[in-house]
């Protein structure tokens, strides 16, 4: 089976686009990724389109109506915050199987405004009556388990936001590019203890796209900027006794990471850069351990050490992460990979991780799904 290469990667600046549709955003990102690859939409054999809130509206077809209706298959996927990674994995399988030589992956989202979530229920509204189902509360509770087990402090959680906001100042496509020192993070509005507003991901619009090709096609195009997909893994949540009462963001990620490392024949020590799902500051701490970046219970010390900041041993969320780059749900997983690709090509500008050769991207979908991809400079 052919290896799969990324030869085009780009995204629009994340932010608010009140006057544009989600498919216009997706079309713009698609054209940028195609231009980056040197291919035309006429070279593309299939489109994999991801969105959490608009996949059912035939997103892929709507993008093609903007950029060229070539009649190719469009696969529209929705898998919560793992939608983008799901689309990439399906595209990977399409190339790997030998059916396609070149495919387009596009993730696009215009998020609803306000706090996301809140499933419909029979009976009186459950929020506040039976605890909270809000995402900040859910991830606060996940973080407090770490606090109870290892003494992780609110300052350690807050340092994740300080770091990622600092990284975002170097990313022209991040939605929020302002330094936010620790006292500012801690003093911002308390949403769900221990999470303040600046420790919650930025609810924005956005789109990102990738062009994936077979090895044969990559050689035709020239390998100098190609990135190889060493592992593409997707998992659903395995049985955990407290789930679904307590959303389990750990086991689903650990399972995906273990399978991805196995597929790549690599381990956490081989990574030069990581983009992980910092939907909340607590989540980044948990995922340090879930992805094997440190030992059990060491995540608080890992953030304190500076090892996960740009210039450290294993920089995490150099893009600014979901906390400050922004989290347009269905575009997030694709954008994470765009960031890794830029670093592996040495094209990340001021935030470049020097000499990066291998990177990991991770997303977590509520419900649950986890996607882990390991990319390598070709």
């Amino acid at each position, binding site marked *: 089976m052919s290896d799969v290469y990324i030869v085009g990667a780009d995204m629009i600046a994340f932010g608010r686009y009140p006057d544009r549709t989600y498919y216009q955003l997706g079309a713009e990102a698609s054209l940028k990724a195609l231009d980056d690859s040197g291919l035309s939409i006429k070279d593309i054999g299939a489109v994999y389109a991801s969105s959490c809130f608009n996949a059912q509206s035939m997103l892929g077809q709507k993008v093609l109506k903007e950029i060229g209706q070539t009649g190719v298959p469009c696969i529209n996927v929705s898998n919560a915050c793992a939608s983008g990674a799901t689309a990439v994995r399906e595209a990977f399988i399409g190339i790997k199987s030998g059916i396609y030589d070149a495919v387009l992956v596009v993730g696009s989202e215009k998020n609803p405004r306000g706090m996301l979530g809140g499933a419909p229920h029979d009976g009186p509204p459950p929020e506040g009556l*039976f605890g909270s189902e809000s995402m900040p509360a859910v991830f606060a509770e996940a973080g407090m388990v770490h606090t109870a087990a290892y003494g992780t402090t609110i300052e350690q959680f807050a340092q994740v936001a300080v770091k990622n906001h600092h990284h975002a100042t170097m990313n022209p496509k991040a939605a929020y590019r302002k330094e936010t020192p620790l006292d500012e993070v801690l003093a911002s509005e308390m949403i*769900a203890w221990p999470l303040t507003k600046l420790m919650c991901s930025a609810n924005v619009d956005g789109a990102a796209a990738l062009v994936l090709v077979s090895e044969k096609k990559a050689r035709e195009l020239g390998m100098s900027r190609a990135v190889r997909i060493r592992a593409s893994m997707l998992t659903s949540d395995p049985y955990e006794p407290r789930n679904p009462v307590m959303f389990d963001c750990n086991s689903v990620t650990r399972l995906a990471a273990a399978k991805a490392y196995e597929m790549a024949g690599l381990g956490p020590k081989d990574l030069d850069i990581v983009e992980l799902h910092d939907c909340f500051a607590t989540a980044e701490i948990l995922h340090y351990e879930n992805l094997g970046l440190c030992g059990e219970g060491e995540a608080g010390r890992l953030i304190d050490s500076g090892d996960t900041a740009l210039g450290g041993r294993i920089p995490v969320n150099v893009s600014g992460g979901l906390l400050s780059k922004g989290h347009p749900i269905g575009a997030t997983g694709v954008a994470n990979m765009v960031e890794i690709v830029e670093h592996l090509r040495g094209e990340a500008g001021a935030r470049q991780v020097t000499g990066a050769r291998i990177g990991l991207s991770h997303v977590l979908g509520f419900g649950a799904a986890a996607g882990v991809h390991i990319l390598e400079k070709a």
Partner: protein
Amino acid sequence: MATDSLTLPKPATGVIRIGTDGRASIEGFRCRDCGGVFAEQTMSCRRCASRNAPEAFRAAESGKLYSWSVVHRSYPGIAVPFVSAIVDLDDGLTLKGTLRGVDAAAVRQGMPVSLVFDDAGGARDKEGAPYVGFHFTPKGDA
């Protein structure tokens, strides 16, 4: 009276059962093969995939706090702050609820709590029937 059946209390959430005596309880389900415990009835066992359907049991009314958050901002119209709590009941079932009657700064993992049935904030359905809900209190407090 013909309207009596319309005013019987209703469970405010899926895990509550109301007996013929009008008393509320929590119903859990336990796999007959692997012992896995669930808050919902499923077709097969979530844990071991046994086709032997899990059997219902009446859950314990005391447990220990596993995790929590003090919620200061929620959806529009929701009164804050409140403590959102995840409680492991003594028989292995886990529930999410609101922990009341506690100083938020004193909440700790492992603190013993009691399950208390209540009127679900006084909610009524459109026919006027009351709802039965639950919350947690620190053990020993009513």
